[in-house]
């Protein structure tokens, strides 16, 4: 009999996994809240360059024909009895479960942020919000822009730095940089969270005259005057606040109750990707508690590990990350590391920027798995060298 695999979430990880499973051996169902698939990295360019590229596709068309696709919201997951309940009142049974429900923005954690987000937009929530932010940047005629992440958890960790550098580039191109102050705030001790990458990033911020406020744990925003206040009482006044909101996991009740950690992420074994305490459930992508960057590349690689495990092979996740970092001006670098190889800075180049842009076109194909052989070679060639553990 074919094994019933239920995948929660039709995002990057869930879609790749569903398309990777052999239909002769698996009866695959993807249960997803939305029938649309958003290419999230594109939000950066919609917000900071006014890009009108199409970022959303029909999820059904991205899934192989044999995959059952159900549009509904998972509300309860019982890992002991092996069923999932949905908002639509269905109870779905499975032999193997894979949670790939991602993370979502949660502005309500910061007083004033919901109002700010509704007014000026942001670039981590939706296409509509990213377009709103572009309207504000496009209409900006000088003053102070303050940009940063609200908490230490950020989907795509390079994205705050990318945002401030693209804002700087926009203002320079428009001849508005002289009459503008750019402020970057972060809860970390340095502008780029991973110290080795910071060696590349900090001098660039300095050269572009961007003011940096470290250890800034955003506590509240006065939406009227746009004053940002940290837990420590430091304040930043600005005309345009661009805040990466806090993130939370999907609002799903799990049995047993300790499946989620204190951040609302699924407790996941770092190597096997099994949900801790379960033999039949796995988690991939942003939804997990893994100590890696929340990125599409991670979700992709983790989906492949779970596909191999389900197919009866020995497979482990090595913690590999490989996030592009757009440094503006047509240059980019990559943040690459793994559990055993701390991040190594790669010199910025135009070629890396071209690769980042090319990937935007290849994304939809990558979901289908047709680029897997090329990706395998690429990741092998760019494998960061293993050094002493924790040398970052």
């Amino acid at each position, binding site marked *: 009999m074919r094994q019933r695999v239920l995948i929660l979430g039709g995002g990057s990880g869930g879609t790749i996994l569903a398309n990777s499973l052999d239909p002769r051996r698996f009866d695959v169902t993807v249960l997803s809240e939305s029938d649309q698939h958003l290419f999230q990295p594109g939000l950066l360019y919609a917000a900071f360059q006014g890009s009108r590229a199409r970022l959303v596709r029909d999820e059904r068309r991205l899934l192989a024909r044999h995959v059952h696709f159900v549009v509904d919201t998972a509300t309860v997951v019982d890992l002991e009895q092996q069923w999932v309940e949905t908002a639509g009142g269905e109870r779905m049974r499975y032999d193997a479960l894979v949670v790939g429900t991602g993370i979502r923005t949660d502005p309500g954690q910061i007083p004033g942020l919901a109002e700010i987000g509704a007014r000026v937009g942001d670039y981590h929530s939706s296409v509509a919000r990213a377009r709103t932010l572009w309207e504000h940047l496009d209409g900006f005629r000088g003053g102070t822009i303050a940009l940063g992440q609200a*908490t*230490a958890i950020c989907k795509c960790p390079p994205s705050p730095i990318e945002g401030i550098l693209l804002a700087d580039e926009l203002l320079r191109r428009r001849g508005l940089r002289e009459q503008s102050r750019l402020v970057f705030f972060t809860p970390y*001790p340095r502008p780029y969270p*991973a*110290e080795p990458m910071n060696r590349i990033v900090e001098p660039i911020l300095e050269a572009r005259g961007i003011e940096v406020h470290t250890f800034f*744990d955003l506590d509240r925003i006065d939406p009227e005057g746009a004053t940002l206040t940290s837990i*420590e009482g430091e304040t930043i006044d600005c005309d345009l606040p661009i805040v990466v909101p806090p993130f939370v996991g999907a609002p799903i009740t799990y049995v047993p109750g300790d499946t989620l950690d204190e951040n609302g992420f699924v407790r996941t074994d770092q190597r096997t990707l099994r949900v801790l305490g379960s033999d039949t459930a796995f988690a991939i992508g942003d939804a997990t508690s893994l*100590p890696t960057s929340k990125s599409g590349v991670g979700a992709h690689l983790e989906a492949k590990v779970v596909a191999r495990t389900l197919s009866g092979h020995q497979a482990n996740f090595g913690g590999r990350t490989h996030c592009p970092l757009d440094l503006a001006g047509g240059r980019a670098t990559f943040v690459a590391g793994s559990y055993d190889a*701390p991040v190594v800075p790669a010199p910025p180049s135009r070629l890396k920027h071209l690769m980042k842009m090319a990937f935007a076109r290849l994304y939809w194909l990558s979901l289908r798995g047709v680029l897997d052989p090329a990706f395998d070679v690429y990741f092998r060639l760019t494998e960061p060298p293993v050094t002493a*553990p924790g040398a970052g």
Partner: protein
Amino acid sequence: MSTPAVQHTLVDSRGSSCPGPITDLSMAYRRSKVGDVIELWATDPGVTSDARAWSDRTGNPILSLEESDGKIVVVIEIQRR
């Protein structure tokens, strides 16, 4: 109204490389209240200087910082929030 009891929170960031431990510390700090104690376990050597700088800047003192067999334990009292 009774004041909620002081909490001793253990944050286990062992095996997580930079910036994992400081991410975990920052998130625990957000959930803490004055009087709480956060005990951070880490294996990344970078945590020592990061935790000291964090303590200086946020005004929350380090009660102890010890290292043995590659395990670093930082105990911080939350005095300012």
